[in-house]
């Protein structure tokens, strides 16, 4: 009897399982769909990586769990009987019959056996007349199904309508990628500096440490342009503090000395660095102390050498007092026709000072290289933040190409910083990256010189003629405005005013200041590219911190792209 009853209950069990699964689906699917839709909505306000996958994962996980529950969920015969009793108003007939017919059933003595048999027959009779489909129709909660449909439609709409945060995500990816690339370049630069034997080991180690720190910070950058720029700016500040602005003038003075000494030594090759210069100096002075030496200097040559040394000493006095003192001492010894130990000591001192200067020069070159690379990194990160956004919003490649060209120009201009030779305005338009001495060439018309990206230059020596510029005026463009007045630079040096000399006939005379680099220390004049970077970075920060619609961000980016040097 029990088996027969269980057999009758099996179709009901299958139907109930199916209905339970459907009910679970209709009751809870809206939750998963709503959660997925919520993720997509949030992704429109917050840059969320892989938001589509997250939303899809929620839905897939839910349906997986639902399928698992449906497959594994089992109902015992007793539960089926009880549910049938409840829903079909069978008044506990089936459950009671199962209890009394199961193999281990113990029927109480007070129960009438005939009534038990009748009860089981009655239950079987009712069980056989149950049509599962009609008895257990699916119960669908319309409100929840409607909620699920609304959520599904919302998901479809959110997937179809372009997400403004895609631009931000692409921008971050671009920035992160650029930061990685720049980090590699910094590491390569660090390797180059590591191999440089001319550097003082301590200085080298400090510089390498800073370079590697910056590389590590850029590598770890998740795409935050603000942080990347801040890291680079901090690095630049540290290096600039160590940068000697007078180094270029010192190098120029030493170059001039080298040329004069090469002429005295009757050499065609000019010494390329301070080491070679020191050797040449030892050679010249050593020969002069031996009268029998055929290469010994004449009195006139010794005087010329002493004068050259004295002039160089005066020129490097501001940047390297030790070197100036040593050269001056040697010049004095030469002037006094000294010989022997005193002269040799002076030569040794000058030689040591020159070697120290060589180390300083190497360090300054390494610093300049590092700064150049930092500037390049700064520009690359800025460009990445602009280019990525523009690429995503416009899906065009033209803007990217233009950015690359502009960046190339800026890089060239920057390489000229502090290394350009002073050119008089009358010499016309120079190459990009070469500086122009300030305060020269005053007249009624502007000189036609170009190339003004140098911030530290040797004094100009050219003569300008008012009203007769050697080059015709040309129309202004941003490439010309390489140096601009930046009032925000106040506090980085003392203001220096240089008045022009009006000779009345339109000619100008050379203004010789105490400073070997007139105008070079005027920190109010900074490279245009630097000002541009500042303003661009500030605008970038504003766009990061304040809420600005994605569409309007493009306008700001386009504006700065148009101004980009």
């Amino acid at each position, binding site marked *: 009897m029990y088996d027969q009853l269980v057999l009758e209950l099996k179709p009901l069990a299958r139907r109930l399982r199916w209905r339970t699964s459907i009910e679970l689906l209709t009751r809870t699917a809206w939750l998963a769909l709503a959660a997925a839709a919520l993720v997509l909505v949030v992704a429109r306000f917050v840059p969320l990586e892989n938001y589509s996958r997250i939303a899809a994962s929620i839905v897939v996980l839910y349906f997986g769990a639902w399928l698992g529950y449906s497959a594994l969920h089992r109902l015992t015969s007793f539960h089926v009987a009880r549910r049938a009793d409840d829903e079909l108003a069978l008044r506990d007939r089936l459950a009671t*019959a199962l209890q009394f017919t199961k193999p281990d059933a113990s029927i109480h003595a007070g129960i009438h056996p005939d009534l038990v048999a009748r*009860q089981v027959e009655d239950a079987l009779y009712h069980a056989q007349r149950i049509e599962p489909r009609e008895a257990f129709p699916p119960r669908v909660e319309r409100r929840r199904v409607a909620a699920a449909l609304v959520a599904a439609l919302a998901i479809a709409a959110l997937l179809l309508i372009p997400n403004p945060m895609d631009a931000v995500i692409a921008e971050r990816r671009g920035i992160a990628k650029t930061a990685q690339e720049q980090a590699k370049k910094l590491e390569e630069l660090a390797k180059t500096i590591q191999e440089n034997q001319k550097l003082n080991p301590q200085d080298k180690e400090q510089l390498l440490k800073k370079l590697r720190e910056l590389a590590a910070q850029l590598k770890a950058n998740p795409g935050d342009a603000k942080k990347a720029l801040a890291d680079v700016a901090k690095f630049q500040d540290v290096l600039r503090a160590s940068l000697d602005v007078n180094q270029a003038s010192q190098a120029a003075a030493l170059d001039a000395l080298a040329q004069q000494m090469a002429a005295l030594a009757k050499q065609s090759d000019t010494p390329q660095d301070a080491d070679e210069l020191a050797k040449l100096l030892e050679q010249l002075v050593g020969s002069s102390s031996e009268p029998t030496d055929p290469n010994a200097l004449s009195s006139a040559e010794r005087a010329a050498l002493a004068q050259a040394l004295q002039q160089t000493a005066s020129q490097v006095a501001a940047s390297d007092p030790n070197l100036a003192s040593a050269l001056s001492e040697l010049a004095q010894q030469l002037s006094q026709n000294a010989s022997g130990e005193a002269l040799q000591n002076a030569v040794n001192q000058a030689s040591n000072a020159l070697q120290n200067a060589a180390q300083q020069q190497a360090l300054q070159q390494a610093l300049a290289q590092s700064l150049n690379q930092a500037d390049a990194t700064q520009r690359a990160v800025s460009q990445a933040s602009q280019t990525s956004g523009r690429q995503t919003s416009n899906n065009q490649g033209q803007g990217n190409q233009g950015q690359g060209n502009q960046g190339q120009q800026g890089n060239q201009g920057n390489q000229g910083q502090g290394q350009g030779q002073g050119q008089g305005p009358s010499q016309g338009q120079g190459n990009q990256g070469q500086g122009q001495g300030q305060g020269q060439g005053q007249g009624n018309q502007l000189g036609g010189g170009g190339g003004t990206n140098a911030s530290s230059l040797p004094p100009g020596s050219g003569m300008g003629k008012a009203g007769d510029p050697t080059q015709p005026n040309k129309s202004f463009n941003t490439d010309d405005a390489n140096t601009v007045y930046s009032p925000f630079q106040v506090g980085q040096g003392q203001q220096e005013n240089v008045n022009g000399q009006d000779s009345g006939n339109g000619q100008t005379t050379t203004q010789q200041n105490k400073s070997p680099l007139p105008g070079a220390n005027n920190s109010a004049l900074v490279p245009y590219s630097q000002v541009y970077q500042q303003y661009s970075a500030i605008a970038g920060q504003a766009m990061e911190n304040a809420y600005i619609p994605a569409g309007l961000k493009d306008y700001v980016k386009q504006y700065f792209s148009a101004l980009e040097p």
Partner: protein
Amino acid sequence: MTPEQFNEIAANIETQVSRVIVGQRDIVRQTLVTLLAGGNALLEGVPGLGKTMLVRTLAQVLDCKFSRIQFTPDLMPADIVGTNILVEDASGARRFQFEPGPVFANLVLADEINRATPKTQSALLEAMQEHSVTVAKTTHRMSEPFFVLATQNPLEMEGTYPLPEAQLDRFFFKLNVTFPNVDELVTIADRTTGQDTARPQSIANGMTICEMQQLARGVPIAPHITQAAARLIRATHSDDANAPDMVKRYVKWGSSPRGMQALILAGKITALLDGRYNVALDDFRAVAPPVLRHRLIRET
């Protein structure tokens, strides 16, 4: 006795009673359930609602001995259970002989039971519980079936002796007799103010009722249904973990195990009357109010 005969007799009893009693179908059904369960019922209602008529009619339908006791403050236990009296036989010998009181009947109507003193009430209540009375160390069994239907008036409570909770628990059901509606009143007027008065037919006797009682006790009840009854009774106690908030707030003391017995017995009879051979949870729902309403002591 078969279940079919049980149903037929019960249906006939209800039909015959309904020839005299207008409306009050639930009261009639629950009174019949009480009778078939071998219990006693307490009817609460204002005078004139047909309580006496109901018991009298039942007695006529069942062909049983009926007695009515009007409870008053001066009613003594002996007035109910009877007493030993001195009698003289033909030979002149004198001896005490037990003279049964009105309680010795099959159907007893204890009218306004709360007007008697507790001592008198307890005399009846002993008979109700034990189906016997003890007088002068001699126990006298009642004839079966023995069914007491006590009434009490919810009004005029002054000078009454409300039944203590322990005594109330001995009643199988407490039935609230409601006032008839207009149609029922019109029918009552038509039936009772004319020349002819309806007279019910005798359907069964005491033996039949006993057989019906026996059959009802044999109705199968599944273990999970019995457990449900037990859980229900436990849930009437405020200290039970499964007790609903309403019980925890308003019930001082819940039902006794007698309540569960009454619930199951009434459920069995209800199932048989419904044509089933098993007790269902729905049967408990139907009989729970008369079973539990006098067994739950409320917070004052």
